[in-house]
């Protein structure tokens, strides 16, 4: 199945594009999608998740507009054709 991953400016610079269109095995979770991101752009993936696989505290991930922290976290299902949005949260001074 196909999933679109939209990246913020900083990560787009590392990926060379702000939109990744990825082929992902079905069914897929957010973790599965990030695994595929890590295969093609490891420098992007490690900025979204740490080495334990946990999503970084100040990075928000949405699946078709839903905040995965309010859903099932990294286990949130990602349907065919979904848009996964990665956004830095409000932090810092």
């Amino acid at each position, binding site marked *: 199945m196909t999933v679109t991953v939209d990246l913020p400016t*900083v*990560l787009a610079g590392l990926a060379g594009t702000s939109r990744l269109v990825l082929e992902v095995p079905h069914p897929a979770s957010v973790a599965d999608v990030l695994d595929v991101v890590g295969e093609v*752009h*490891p*420098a992007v993936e*490690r*900025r979204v998740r*740490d*080495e*334990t696989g*946990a999503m*970084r505290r*100040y*990075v928000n991930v949405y699946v078709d507009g839903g905040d995965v922290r309010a859903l099932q976290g990294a286990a949130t299902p990602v349907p065919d054709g979904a848009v996964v949005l990665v956004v*830095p*949260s409000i*932090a*810092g001074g």
Partner: protein
Amino acid sequence: MSTTMLAVGTVKGLFLGTSEDGGAWRWEGPAFSMTRVAAVAFDTRHQPPRILVGGGHEHWGPVIAHSDDLGASWVEGDEAALRFPEDTGVAVERVWQLAPGPADRPGEVWAGVEPAALFRSDDEGKTFSLVTGLWDHPHRPSWQPGAGGMCLHTVLPHPDDASQVLVAISAAGVYRSQDGGQSWAPSNAGIEVTFMPEKLPEFGQCVHKVARDCADPDRLILQNHGGVFRSSDGGASWERSETGLPANFGFGLTAHPSRSGTAFLFPLIADMNRMPPDGMARVYRTDDYGATWTSASHGLPREGFYSVVLRDGLTTDGDDPLGVYFGTRSGGVFASRDEAASWEEVAAHLPEVLCVRAAVVS
């Protein structure tokens, strides 16, 4: 013509200053914008010196990178150069210290991180491995974080003996290995603490910085969380080193790189009053291995100065005469071209300075 470079790590990136033949400083940056650059090192085993940078971005996690062209470009691998093994279940929060080994051990680079752990590289900092002997130390579950976090912030490899390494951790204290990092023992005998019922615990000291003498590696100066100490036996034991100081709190400390017995520090009043005594910016200097200290502050602000120099914010450049530098939490950088005999402000209004390193780069 000689060029001196200052690398200033701040809470919002790295600034690089260059000065040719003692002339005015020209500043560039920030590189790694919005990254807390807590660790910088000039690896002078390379020509030009390699600049190593470490830190952490609030959003995107730890950063470790290097430049072989004096900051014109940076190399940061796609894969993380430094990560905990999967079986630890732990992630690196931030790099706090990068310490190249001596000239005759060319690949050796050490990294201290948060949560408190030591990593070692044998490929010039391209990849690092966790030093499991320290990570598995039975004391580790009892270590408590200092205000800055649970960090390993000081790594002093022995210049002549690859088997000996000294680290400092806040707040666990000094630990030493004498077998290349396989096993570790606390080394805090004589370092008093003020924040626990026991005044001389085996470990748990909040050591802020340790500096090693350039010619006698067994001589060390240590800035503790309340107390300046010295050792003449490699850290096996410590005694007070406060004669002449206006106060015994502080963070910034560095040793002269070529004159044995000389070191510099920046005192603060106390843990509950973290400001310079008398509102004066003052660097103190010892020339007798910490037996006595005297102010070496001509040209520094003499009133209305309330800023702080953090643990890696005071450094030297290796030149002759020696350049001495410090950066402040209020974004100022001060420089001395004459071994701290006189000072001038060379940068102002930078973000909060976390670390400063300097080198003669050409």
